[in-house]
């Protein structure tokens, strides 16, 4: 295992330390926790937005803490949901009297731990609402299963809800838009190489030189399907086709396109994928009003990308364009 670390069991702690040392005017760490908050938290008079989850997805989530996005991020161990008490600490630290909104990615662990924290907060009289993001279309949706994962599209939820909160929306309005929003975000990912959880010390799966995984999540888990190597254009088409099974792409529809690198895929390749998706969408008459390309929700050093589409409207256009001042995403 080749990693620039000191001690596999200290990676999250040292990373958070490093973030605060690097951005002392932007971020503050709650003592004895894995919670990073905006330096000026709690901000009075606006609902606070909290996200979090396992570590290893950097810049998600702590990189999105700042004006216009998150008030706090809670980091668990690598690929492991944080515990309810950590989330609860975050809730208490950022509540500015207008309530707290939790952005949860749909994993059993995240949902259970965040729900437990919400119960704890409610018991203390803090107004908490949440949304469960499940943008990953790789898995069939069904009421009999845990449903779909939350992946890169979650970053768009941070951006939009963060902008709403700055703009003066109430907790209830945020919760309402959040429910609509998650229905309008669809993502699909793939990977060329696995990644290594520091404490595990070995890759989560192996892939031959001529194989790739389609439908990979962001936790080094195997994908839904293994195929031979596809070209960038073929890969883009495969991902988009799967998204289309769930989101009807109609002429004159407006979408935001998010290309997300999983950690080891050069930006060059991400733009080659973006090019392919743009061509495909153009053929369908779909208008891309905004494209965001980069590493936003990674899976350590996994090579791969995901493609996310978000249905746009006037409000969302404004919220996406609104100012954001975080260490990883600025507008």
């Amino acid at each position, binding site marked *: 295992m080749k990693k620039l670390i000191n001690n596999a069991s200290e990676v999250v702690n040292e990373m958070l330390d490093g973030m605060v040392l690097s951005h002392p005017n932007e971020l503050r760490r709650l003592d004895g926790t894995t919670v990073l908050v905006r330096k000026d938290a709690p901000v009075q008079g606006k609902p606070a937005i909290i996200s979090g989850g*396992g570590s290893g997805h950097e810049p998600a989530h702590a990189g999105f803490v700042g004006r216009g996005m998150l008030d706090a991020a809670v980091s*668990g*161990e*690598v*690929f*492991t*949901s*944080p*515990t*309810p*008490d950590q989330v609860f600490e975050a809730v208490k630290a950022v509540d500015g009297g207008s309530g707290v909104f939790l952005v949860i990615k749909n*994993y*059993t*662990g995240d949902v*259970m*731990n965040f729900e*437990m924290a919400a119960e704890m907060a409610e018991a203390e009289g803090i107004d908490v609402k949440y949304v469960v993001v499940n943008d*990953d279309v*790789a*898995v*069939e949706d069904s009421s*009999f*299963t*845990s449903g779909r*994962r939350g992946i890169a599209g979650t970053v768009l939820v941070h951006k939009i809800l963060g902008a709403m909160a700055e703009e003066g929306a109430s907790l209830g309005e945020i919760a309402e838009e959040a429910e609509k929003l998650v229905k309008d975000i669809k993502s699909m990912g793939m990977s060329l190489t696995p990644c290594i*959880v520091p*404490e*595990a010390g*070995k890759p*989560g*799966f192996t892939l031959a030189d001529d194989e790739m995984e389609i439908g990979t*999540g962001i*936790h*080094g*888990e*195997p994908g*839904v399907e293994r195929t031979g190597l596809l070209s960038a254009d073929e890969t883009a088409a495969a991902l988009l086709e799967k998204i289309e099974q769930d989101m009807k792409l109609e002429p004159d529809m407006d979408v935001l396109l998010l290309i997300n690198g999983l950690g080891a895929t050069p930006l060059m390749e991400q733009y080659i994928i973006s090019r392919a998706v743009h061509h495909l969408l153009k053929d369908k008459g779909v208008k891309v009003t905004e494209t965001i390309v980069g590493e936003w929700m990674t899976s350590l050093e996994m090579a791969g990308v995901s493609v996310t589409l978000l249905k746009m409207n006037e409000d969302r256009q404004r919220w996406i364009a609104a100012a954001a001042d975080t260490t990883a995403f600025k507008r």
Partner: protein
Amino acid sequence: MNQQDAVNWILSFQKKIESSKEYLTDLDQAVGDGDHGINMNRGLQHAAGVLHEKTFETPGDVLKAVSTAFISKVGGASGPLYGSAMLKASGSCGGKETLEDEDVKAMLRAAADAVQARGRAERGEKTMYDVWEAVVRAAEEKEDIDWQHVRMKTAEAADATKEMQAKKGRAAYLGARSIGHLDPGSVSTRMLIESLAEVLESGDS
């Protein structure tokens, strides 16, 4: 089952998990994210520390402390699941200093119900609930718990997860590819029950 039995139960479980950490991680790499052994070990290291440091009056106290270790140190799916199981198990023990077989059955049922409620799990979904459900059924079959029988049924239930397609937890994301792999949480739950059987069998003899 007295408080010492409860302590021994968890310490025995801790040792099993410590020595199976890599095995559980391998299982979780096949169908999940490869951290189940790490998660369980982290929680149990902490729990063992607490059990060594403090003294407890009742089995319920012991399980309460273990529950806290799981809820506050583990995270992931197994933290709340084991944590809730232990919390409800502790609640079912109440203030009793010694548990009779009836109480142990109630404790196991409380734990199983907690896992089901927390995980919204049903039987056959390839989760640790499959094992819990089998444990409760096996324990309740006879008036005096037949630990040999419970062990067998627990093992069967854990093994049976191999051929299931997962419907809950990370393994569900793999769809049909989840078939052919043991469920890691079921295997660790089996270890928990084996430790309990060891402690209570030896107490009987």
